[in-house]
């Protein structure tokens, strides 16, 4: 029985240690909310209406103390917070676009020592800092703490109701301050400051499958998959690495790391909405194999006569969205995007889990003032009413769309998908159903710690849309400005690729990435099976690693009793088939092309191979042999090309940082 008691005691102290102190800003907000609701309920608008003004005593002092105690961590987070705040202050403006990505100083670049605190901070708690550097969620929280403390300074003038607090209110603060002081967290050895440092469980969920295995051509010559134009995985991995943590292996989808970059394959000609090109190159990590590279380039239709757009922003305003890298960044991002819209385009805003319902009626994009005002009014908070947010968004979209226009719902969230339909399958079906009516869904993820990558993927895939992760204004610029046309205008739908390898020339093959996009062989010709879309101007890349017959690199032994491989009179490596539908059509068209061994390497192959290597190093390097970070970085560096926006230079930095992290 004493054992039980010990266990219970242990549990109790662990529980005390794990329980965080409430965030001061959240606390103040909640109290203000409760007071406002109380006042509303009493129907009184007189002095009993309290303001959101936070009491000046107690809280700030507590924060100062926290900074003193957690010196090095606080130093680290304070810098981040200040950056985040600068971000909020600047407001929309063209010069904003030149802003460098905000990043943790000392964490990016080549600095391998991640846990080093800024110089002006005492190092006594170095160990804590080291530990914290490994725990991104803890840092995340730290950022929230400080950033929110600063945020009011950065925001516009506080609500007009911020009157001088009456004596009654001041009095009301005192007992609580007192009670906090008199409450030395019962039976708890550690002071409350220590409790904050305990990392909380990370609740992110990722979508992935096991890495594609090597296939023996003689046994399984056909490989079928759907294209994937998402980029969320790269942005997520970059965000993790820049926080000083290698991404979770399931967060790495290699095809998205490759497809994050534009390869500028040669433009389509004739009636085809996109071009398909193939190339063969020597595998950088294995002298005995080759890479078969398939590149698809979507045409960039003349945007001057593009159809009018109807956009419905469906925005998560649950309480957890108030972090600086969530709702504030979202507002900035959408502001950037507005500048890309035409006067004839229309925008509406629907929120869920919070100040419920439609907050902006369909408004012409030319009326920037009204749209911006609605956007800036959004606040994280309010009670979490189970709104039928998604249905409402679709209804609004439906009401907006006219013949020949393009309608899209853009869902922005940090992972709270409580959008009104509670059964995931019903949710998917609903979105797929709406897809058939021509309203598509794109998903933008914000913030870390609670991001539901898996659901994001599922929703976007079913909604014929893109899933992107936005962690900085630069990423918003890339996704919502530079590549907006690609994200919003599909030029080909349900694009499926099937490659049949020739057992006479290829002994084994392996598709790099696309695990979550695998299709059954018979799905290829079935036009009812949904697949990925190609957006205007986007490029999509797929890479196979193939082992020629007779190569030393072969991993499996040939079967003794198998039929002799058919010659077929062909020295082709394989045969590429691709199916797509014109937007809105229900029957697919077929493109076929042989893949021959003498195809020259394509433009951009080197970079794509470097990214494929990068992804495998992060996820599963079992096929890479001795080839490691140094080689991957060298390969990437040698293939940076023109890189007009600096994305590739940044990727090299991220790889170097990942190398340092992996070496620890």
């Amino acid at each position, binding site marked *: 029985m004493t054992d039980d008691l010990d266990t219970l005691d242990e549990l109790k102290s662990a529980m005390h240690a*794990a329980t*965080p102190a409430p965030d001061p800003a959240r606390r103040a907000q909640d*109290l203000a909310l409760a007071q406002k609701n*109380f006042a509303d*309920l009493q129907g009184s608008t007189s002095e009993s209406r309290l303001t959101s003004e936070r009491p000046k005593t107690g809280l700030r002092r507590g924060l100062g103390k926290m900074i003193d105690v957690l010196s090095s961590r606080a130093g680290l987070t304070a810098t981040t917070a200040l950056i985040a705040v600068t971000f909020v202050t600047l407001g929309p403006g063209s010069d904003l676009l030149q802003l460098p990505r905000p990043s943790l100083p000392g964490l990016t670049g080549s600095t391998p020592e991640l846990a080093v605190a800024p110089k002006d901070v005492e190092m006594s708690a170095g160990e804590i800092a080291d530990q914290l550097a490994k725990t991104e969620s803890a840092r995340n929280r730290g950022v929230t703490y400080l950033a929110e403390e600063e945020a009011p300074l950065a925001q516009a003038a506080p609500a007009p109701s911020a009157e001088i607090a009456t004596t009654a209110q001041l009095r009301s603060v005192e007992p609580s301050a007192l009670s906090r002081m008199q409450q030395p967290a019962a039976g708890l050895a550690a002071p409350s400051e220590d409790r904050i440092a305990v990392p909380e469980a990370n*609740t992110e*969920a990722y979508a992935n499958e096991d890495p594609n295995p090597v296939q023996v051509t003689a046994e399984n010559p056909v490989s079928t998959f759907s294209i994937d134009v998402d980029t969320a995985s790269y942005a997520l991995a970059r965000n993790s690495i820049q926080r000083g943590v290698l991404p979770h292996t399931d967060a790495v989808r290699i095809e998205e790391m490759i497809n994050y970059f534009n390869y500028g394959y040669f433009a389509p000609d004739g009636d085809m909405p996109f071009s398909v090109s193939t190339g063969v190159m020597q595998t950088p990590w294995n002298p005995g194999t080759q890479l078969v590279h398939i590149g698809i380039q979507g045409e960039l239709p003349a945007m001057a006569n593009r159809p009018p757009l109807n956009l419905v922003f469906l925005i998560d305003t649950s309480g957890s969205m108030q972090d600086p890298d969530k709702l504030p960044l979202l507002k900035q991002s959408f502001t950037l995007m507005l500048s890309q819209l035409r006067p004839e385009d229309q925008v509406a805003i629907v929120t869920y889990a919070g100040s419920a319902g439609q907050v902006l009626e369909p408004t012409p994009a030319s009326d920037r003032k009204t749209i911006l005002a609605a956007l800036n009014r959004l606040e994280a908070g309010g009670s979490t009413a189970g709104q039928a947010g998604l249905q409402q968004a679709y209804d609004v979209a439906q009401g907006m769309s006219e013949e020949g226009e393009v309608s899209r719902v853009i869902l922005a969230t940090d992972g709270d*998908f409580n959008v009104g339909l509670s059964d*995931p399958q019903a949710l998917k079906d609903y979105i797929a159903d709406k897809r058939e009516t021509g309203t598509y869904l794109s998903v933008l993820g914000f913030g870390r710690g609670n991001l539901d990558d898996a659901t994001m993927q599922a929703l976007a895939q079913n909604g014929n849309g893109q899933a992107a992760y936005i962690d900085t204004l630069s990423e918003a610029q890339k996704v919502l400005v530079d590549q907006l046309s690609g994200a919003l205008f599909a030029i080909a739908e349900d694009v499926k690729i099937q490659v049949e390898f020739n057992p006479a020339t290829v002994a084994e093959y392996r598709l790099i990435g696309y695990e979550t996009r695998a299709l059954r062989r018979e799905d290829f010709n079935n036009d009812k099976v949904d697949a990925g879309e190609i957006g205007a101007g986007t490029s999509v890349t797929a890479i196979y690693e193939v082992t020629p017959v007779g190569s030393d690199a072969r991993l499996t032994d040939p079967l003794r009793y198998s039929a002799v491989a058919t010659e077929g009179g062909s020295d082709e490596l394989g045969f590429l088939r691709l199916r797509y539908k014109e937007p809105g059509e229900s029957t697919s068209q077929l493109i076929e092309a042989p893949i021959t061994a003498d195809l020259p390497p394509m433009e951009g192959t080197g970079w794509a191979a470097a990214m494929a290597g990068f992804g495998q190093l992060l996820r599963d390097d079992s096929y890479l042999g001795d080839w490691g970070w140094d080689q991957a970085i060298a390969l990437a560096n040698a293939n940076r090309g023109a890189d007009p926006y600096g994305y590739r230079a940044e990727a090299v930095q991220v790889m170097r940082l990942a190398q340092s992290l992996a070496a620890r």
Partner: protein
Amino acid sequence: MDTSDESLAKAAAGGDAVAFSTLLERRYDQLFALCFRLTGSRAEAEDLTQDICAALPAKISRFRGESRFMTWLYRVAVNAAHDRRRRQSTRSRAAEGWGDWEKSRQAEMSETAAQVDWLTAAMRSLPEQLRDTLALVLDEVTHAQAAEILDVSEGTISWRMSEAKKHLRRMREEEEQV
């Protein structure tokens, strides 16, 4: 002046805004701590606390002083947590907080985290009912109060606690075998 929880709560029920804000200020931190113990994640706890604060003014008008205020508040919190869980249970991220043991296990390595891990693992190994009961009892709530909060008999609480202990003992044994 009588400033006990109960008299403030009764004043609040009668429309006294100052009493209401005083009371909530006083008890907010404990409310948040309980929300964390019920959910196992900070983000969830924050959203849950916010829900409760938003709904509290309407609820407190029905406070009659038949139980202690904290007992009453905890019952509100437990019910709100159940509502929230029910709404979420069919969503794909149902396995979160205490449920998301595997992910946190992979993510955390440090010693402090090991303690949290053990806690998370322990909480996760328990069925929901036992988890809620334990969350209350670990919060220094007596069995009698817990019974009142959860609207079950005191015997049920005692039984649940012994079940929880059994669970934990089994877990401890498995740990030691490894």
